[in-house]
Structures are given as structure tokens and as C-alpha cells.
């Protein structure tokens, strides 16, 4: 039989490394250490030593530690994908989704940035212009829409950056949900769904965590947009207003641009976002802090994507809620016969996959199915 649902039982809660046992803490410690070295190398005084990621990259013949990071990232995704597919690869949606996501990472987010500079320029000083990551868009890759970047990269890249972020991404999210990006393309989502998959059940589903998520993620979204606008303003008036320029883009650690980079890019996305996979689940960053997820979530909410619930069939078992990596209490909708669209949902499809009663279906349909009205057993008022 071709199986589309969860195939066999999982032993998740009997495995210490997946349920905050000692190994989980050790892995978290190692990840946090690695990200701290990677992002704060210049501040830790490790340059030139055995702990210098630049030295590791050089030893491997890679131009910078970021390419080394890209290589490790791709390897982690490939290994994680093997783990994921062994468990959930019986369903086509899962196979296609993970396959595409890993492919995008390896080709668009590693190979092309690695080789493009050699094709387009011989000057190492110009390499950075061609180290272009096609799979990342503003506001996740916040630098892509900076006036400085737009001016300096080749014009095709600049157009791609603008159209991708402001037109294509929102439109696709409207028609297909934010999953087109968060679960099929994005590297952060890709790592979460492969390397991070063993820990997906650790995402908190409490109401408190939902409240925190809504506040945090929309705050960061606001900051991402506002700071980008300020950079444009600085671009226009900065040379006439030295204090403003120093505050916004002066190069000191406390200028807005550096602060955003450290706090959002390095600490929230890297150190915490990935470092805490084994303790808080793999979508800490995506769920609580990613400005792109927040923005696409708004379009998703307005758009066509939804999870359709088959009436009265839910047995409230909790498999969907437990294995939702975004901490959405899917069961609460399923048991009330409510088809739903949540801004946070990344459309990973796992809730539908693990549901033992086939209650849930991800869909991008323009209008609600006719039988959606048929909710609950008929109770006849006399």
C-alpha cells in the first residue's frame, strides 16, 4: 500500500536525546559555542588560534568562514534530511518538500555563492558582490534592501532583491501560504526541518508561548522595516547630518545597523535560534523572531492557504499539536471542526501526516469546501 500518514509508531518520549536528556544539553552547548565563535570571532580574541573559524576555513581552502559555515550547514541538512526521510519519507509531500529544500540550500545557498565570484570577477576585492544568495530575501536577509547593497551589487541582483522581497514573496504567500518560502526554500526553515526535526515536539504549545510569539515576532518585523527605512533616510540626508549618520550607520557597535546585525542576525537567529534546537525545538527563530515569517504570515492570513478539518473525526489525540514545530495547538481547531489559517503555520504538513484519523488537509483553495458548513452532529431544536 502507498502510505501517506505516519508509518509506524515513534518512541520520541523514550529517547533522552530527544527529550532534554544530558545529550540534548551537550548538543545545545556545542551549537551555542560554535555560533558564538562564528559570529563573535572578531571580539573573542581567537583570531589566528586553534579556535578561529577563519583559520578553519582557510585550511579547507574556502574564502571565508561564511563559506565554511555554508558547507557545514549543507552537510547538516543532508544528514538531517536522511533522518527525516527515513521516518516520514513515505508521504510524497514530505519527500518533495525536503528534497527541494535541501536542493535549494546546496545549489543556491552554497554552490553558487562559492563559484559565482570566480566566473564574474578575478579581483578578490570584488568577490563579495557576486557572493549572492538567491534563496534569501529581505527582511530575513536584511542587508539585501540596504541602499548600500543595492547600489553596489550587479544590477540584475539588485532587481532580483527588490522584486523578490516586495513582489514575488508576498504574492506567493498569498496564493500558496508562507510555506512556499518557510518550508520549501528558506535555509533556516530547511535546517529546522532536517537537522532540527528530531526535536520538533519540544516547541511549546502553551497559550503563553503564543502570546510571546505574537509580540516578539511582530516587534522584530517592525524593527526590520523601520530600520531599513532609516537606512534609506540616512542615505538621503546622512552626509548633511553627522549625528544622525553616526547613530544609524556609523560603524560603531552601538549604531543601529551594527546593533540589528548583532542582536537579530547573530544572537537571535544564530546563537539562540539554532543553539536551542535540542531544548526548545527547531523553530525558535522562525516562530518568535523572523521578520520574514511575520510578514509572510500576514499575507498568508489574508490569502488562500488553510488547513481544512474534516468534521467530527478528530479524536483529540494530540499528535498534531505535539508534532507541530510552530507550537500551534492544531487539536484545538480540529476538535471544534474549525478549518483554520494561522499566521505562524509554515505548512510543513506534519500535522496532517501524523494525524491517525486523516482529519487535516493542507489546501490552497479559493473558497471553503461546501461541506465545511456541516459541522458537528445535528442537534435539532424542537
Amino acid at each position: 500500500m502507498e502510505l501517506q500518514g505516519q508509518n509506524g509508531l515513534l518512541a520520541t518520549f523514550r529517547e533522552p536525546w530527544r527529550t532534554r536528556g544530558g545529550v540534548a544539553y551537550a548538543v545545545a552547548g556545542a551549537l551555542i559555542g560554535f555560533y558564538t565563535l562564528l559570529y563573535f570571532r572578531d571580539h573573542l580574541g581567537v583570531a589566528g588560534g586553534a579556535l578561529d573559524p577563519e583559520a578553519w576555513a582557510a585550511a579547507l581552502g574556502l574564502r571565508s568562514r561564511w563559506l565554511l559555515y555554508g558547507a557545514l550547514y549543507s552537510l547538516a541538512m543532508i544528514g538531517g534530511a536522511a533522518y527525516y526521510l527515513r521516518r516520514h519519507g513515505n508521504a510524497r509531500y514530505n519527500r518533495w518538500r525536503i528534497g527541494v529544500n535541501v536542493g535549494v540550500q546546496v545549489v543556491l545557498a552554497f554552490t553558487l555563492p562559492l563559484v559565482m565570484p570566480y566566473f564574474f570577477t578575478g579581483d578578490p576585492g570584488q568577490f563579495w558582490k557576486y557572493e549572492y544568495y538567491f534563496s534569501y530575501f529581505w527582511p530575513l536577509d536584511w542587508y539585501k534592501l540596504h541602499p548600500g547593497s543595492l547600489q553596489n551589487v550587479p544590477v540584475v541582483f539588485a532587481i532580483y532583491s527588490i522584486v523578490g522581497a516586495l513582489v514575488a514573496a508576498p504574492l506567493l504567500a498569498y496564493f500558496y501560504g508562507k510555506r512556499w518560502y518557510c518550508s520549501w526554500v528558506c535555509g533556516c526553515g530547511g535546517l529546522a526541518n532536517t537537522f532540527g526535526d528530531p526535536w520538533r515536539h519540544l516547541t511549546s504549545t502553551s497559550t503563553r508561548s503564543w502570546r510571546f510569539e505574537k509580540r516578539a515576532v511582530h516587534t522584530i518585523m517592525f524593527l526590520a522595516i523601520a530600520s531599513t527605512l532609516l537606512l534609506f533616510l540616512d542615505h538621503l540626508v546622512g552626509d548633511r547630518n553627522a549625528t544622525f549618520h553616526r547613530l544609524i550607520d556609523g560603524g560603531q557597535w552601538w549604531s543601529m545597523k551594527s546593533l540589528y546585525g548583532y542582536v537579530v542576525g547573530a544572537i537571535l537567529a544564530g546563537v539562540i535560534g539554532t543553539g536551542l534546537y535540542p531544548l526548545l525545538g527547531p523553530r525558535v527563530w522562525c516562530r518568535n523572531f523572523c521578520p520574514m515569517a511575520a510578514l509572510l504570515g500576514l499575507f498568508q492570513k489574508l490569502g488562500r492557504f488553510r488547513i481544512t478539518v474534516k468534521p467530527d473525526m478528530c479524536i483529540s489525540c494530540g499528535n498534531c499539536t505535539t508534532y507541530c514545530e510552530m507550537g500551534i495547538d492544531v487539536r484545538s481547531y480540529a476538535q471544534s471542526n474549525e478549518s483554520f489559517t494561522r499566521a505562524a503555520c509554515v505548512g510543513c504538513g506534519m500535522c496532517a501526516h501524523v494525524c491517525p484519523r486523516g482529519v487535516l488537509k493542507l489546501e490552497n483553495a479559493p473558497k471553503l469546501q461546501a461541506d465545511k458548513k456541516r459541522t458537528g452532529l445535528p442537534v435539532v431544536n424542537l
Partner: protein
Amino acid sequence: MRVVIIGNGVAGIEAALALRAREPAWSITIVSEESDHFFSRTALMWVLSGQLSHRCIEPHERDLYARMRFERVRARALGVDAALRQIRLAGRPPLDFDQLLIACGSRPRPGPWPGAELDGVGAFVSLQDLEWLEAELHGGPSRGGRPPNPDAHVALAPADSPYRPRTSLRARRGGPPRHPVVIGGGLIGIEAVEVMLAAGLRPRFYVREDSFWPVALDAREAAVVTEALRAHGADVRLGEHVEALVDDGQGAVGAVRSDAGEEPCDLCVVAIGVEPNTGWLVGSGVSLDARGGVVTSERLETSVEGIYAAGDCAAVRWFDGTTRPEPLWYTARAQGRVAARAMLGDSVRYDRGPWFNSAKLMDLEYTTAGLVNQHMEGEHNWFFEERREAGGALRSTLRVVLAGERVVGFNALGRRWNHAVWVRWIEERRPLGWVLDHLAEAAFDTELVPPLVIPREARERAPERPATRSNEAPVAAPRY
């Protein structure tokens, strides 16, 4: 208004929530012997395997009772005094009520064979059963831990309570069972088998009937399930009648004797069905039917005014007009809501509508609607086996049941279907051709799964008379 609800299961909690939604001031007390928190009984198997933790199978956050101001009493109810309007409790003073809801669920039907009370023999229905099997199969609870307050009821639980803990033989045996047995070819039985297989054991599975789950599956469908069970390593014994459970000399089960002989057994899960958990109501003045179900009116009121019943313990009217308990999750939930509305004074009627259900039989998804194994007058079946390629591996099965020209039932394995659409077609009295033309509207497969394609010759095949299974008198075609 003082409302007391006996039972913290789905029927009880749904009723309590529905009452609170309309009556913020009523005093609502929930009495439960089994647990402090409402949990999904349907999900016990995943806690046993380790796929879910105890907290995962609680559908509400644990502060629900405080938020909703539900008083909780963890005790066994011993009887109702209908005249004094009191509930007697084990080890506690009685509780007064103005209105009472009995939602005390069902208990496992005990094995009718000698030896059914031996150590190492039990059921898989309650939290306590779960805890026993966790100890037997895995040596203890998963890292998700035990439910909160697991033993609060133990000291006062009378011997006949279905929620009494059972002792594990694992220590005496020195490890997990070597010859685990499951008796009873129904849904709980197959769940127990699946969990044992997942724990690395090879259970022996006694099914009295000649094919698996004959109330729901026909012989061809049952064969598919049996094959899946065997492929996963279960030793399925079809048509074998258990005669006795044999003492190992130390008061524990040592073997199972059936009409095919005696074979070793050191753990036995009996899953031969459930019965209303209403022994404690005998003699209280609340009428019970022959099966022990609480007799209810259309508005789920019992024979005593102001006392209602809902869920597994209530005998309700079925779609076929008979009255009996209906041990199902969605009906228990619906009955809880209807009973609450009746208690609030609304004119309501519990109307069950056509039958539907779904299940997962090992890896096979099963969906059904309407009448499928009723042996009806003028019944014909249109059956289709979808194969990957001609003569290749089976991909799914679909059976459409007809009474005369009209479609009255659907049974499907291996694909997901929206039963609500099927139910509508049954109510619209659609003919087979129309249904086959519109099947795609009921498809509920996950994305990217290729749709079911029915070749022309299969589509035009005349439906067959079902193989007569028994000499039961045929039932009339449904009226709805």
C-alpha cells in the same frame, strides 16, 4: 444551581464547558476516580509507545479547571440517592446536587474464561491499564512522566473498580514478556498489538472470528489488514477460540488454551469489548437496560428527573432505531453537549445521524460511512482494488454498498476520504454511477498523492451480491 458531573471524560468535560459558557454562576463539580485531568482515552496507545507524553494527550491546558471554576473531586462514586439528591462517594462525605450528569464511560468486558483474573492479564482501557502496560513492556513510564497525581484514588478504590492499579510481572519475569498475547479482534486489540510490535515484541493475536473485525470489514478488506499485521510480525490466529488462561503455578498467567491447543503466554491483554461502567448505579432508581446502559430519553434524561446521562454509559437511539450504548469519541462529545443544553432547559434532541467512523489499522487508514456490513435486503457491493500497476502491489481498496439502486455505505482502506461528503451522498440517495463520477469531491488525501483513477471496466462492473456471511436475517434498508 448545583450541577454534579460523574466523569472527567470527553462527555463530562464537554458538558461542563457548555454549561459554563452559558451559566457563569452555576456551581459545577466534576467527580472522577481515574484522573485529575481530562485526557483522550483514544490516545493511550501513543503514550504507551512513547510517541506522546501524558501532557500531550490532555486536550486542554492544566489550568482549565481553575479558569472555568470547575470543582474537582477525585473519588469513586458509590451510588446515587435519587430522593435525597445526593451522590455517595468512597471515603468522602456525600455530595448534594440539583442536576446530575452521569458520564462514567465504559469498562472493559472481562474475559469469560477460567483464569481471566490471573496476574499478568488485563485490559487496555484506563490510565491504570496504561501504567501497567508501560511497566510490563518498557519497565516504566516514558520520559514524559506519569500523569499528575496518579495514585490519589488508590487507597479508596473498591475491589471492583476498573481504575485499580495492576501489578507488573516484569521484575519476576526479569524483563519484557516473551510470549505476549492479545485476545479480541477489534480496534483496541489491534492497537495493543501495534504497540507491542513497536516495542520489539511479537504478540500472538487471537481473533475468534474467521476474519479480522467482521462488523466493519468484509473478508477481502480483512485479509488486507491481516496481511499487514503478519508483515509486521504479529502472529495472527483467526478463528481460534480461547478456552482458558492457564495458571503458571504462581498465580500468574502461563499459557493460553484454545481450541487449537495450549501455548505459552506471560502477558495477556484482553480486548473483547467494553460495557457500560454502571455497576455502581444498580439499585439507585436510575433505570439500566439489559446491557447495563443508562436508559435515556431523546434529550438524554434518565428515568429520574434532573438526572442525565451521556457518553459510553448511556443507551441512546442509534441511526437504525435501536437503543444501546455507543462507545465512540465523537458521539460521547456530542452527547455531552446535548445533555448540557437539556440541563440548561433548551428543547434539544440527540439525533445521531448516519454512521461514520475512521481508524488506523496498523499503517492502513480506514474510513467508513453509512451501512457497510449489515447484510441488507437487496444489498450489492461494488468493490475496487487499486493497484500500483496491473498485477502490482495493492494501493487502496474502496467498497461502495448499495441497497437496490441507491448507495448506502462506503468502506475504504489506504486512502483518506471526507466522510462528510459521503454522508451527504447517502442522504441524497445517489446511485452508484453518479457517486463514481464524483468521487474526487470526497478525496481527502494529503497533497501530491496521485488521485484515485478507476478504469472504465472496473467502473462499469456490475455490483455483486455480498458473500453471505451468516444465517442472520437480513436487515431492512435504512430510512434516512
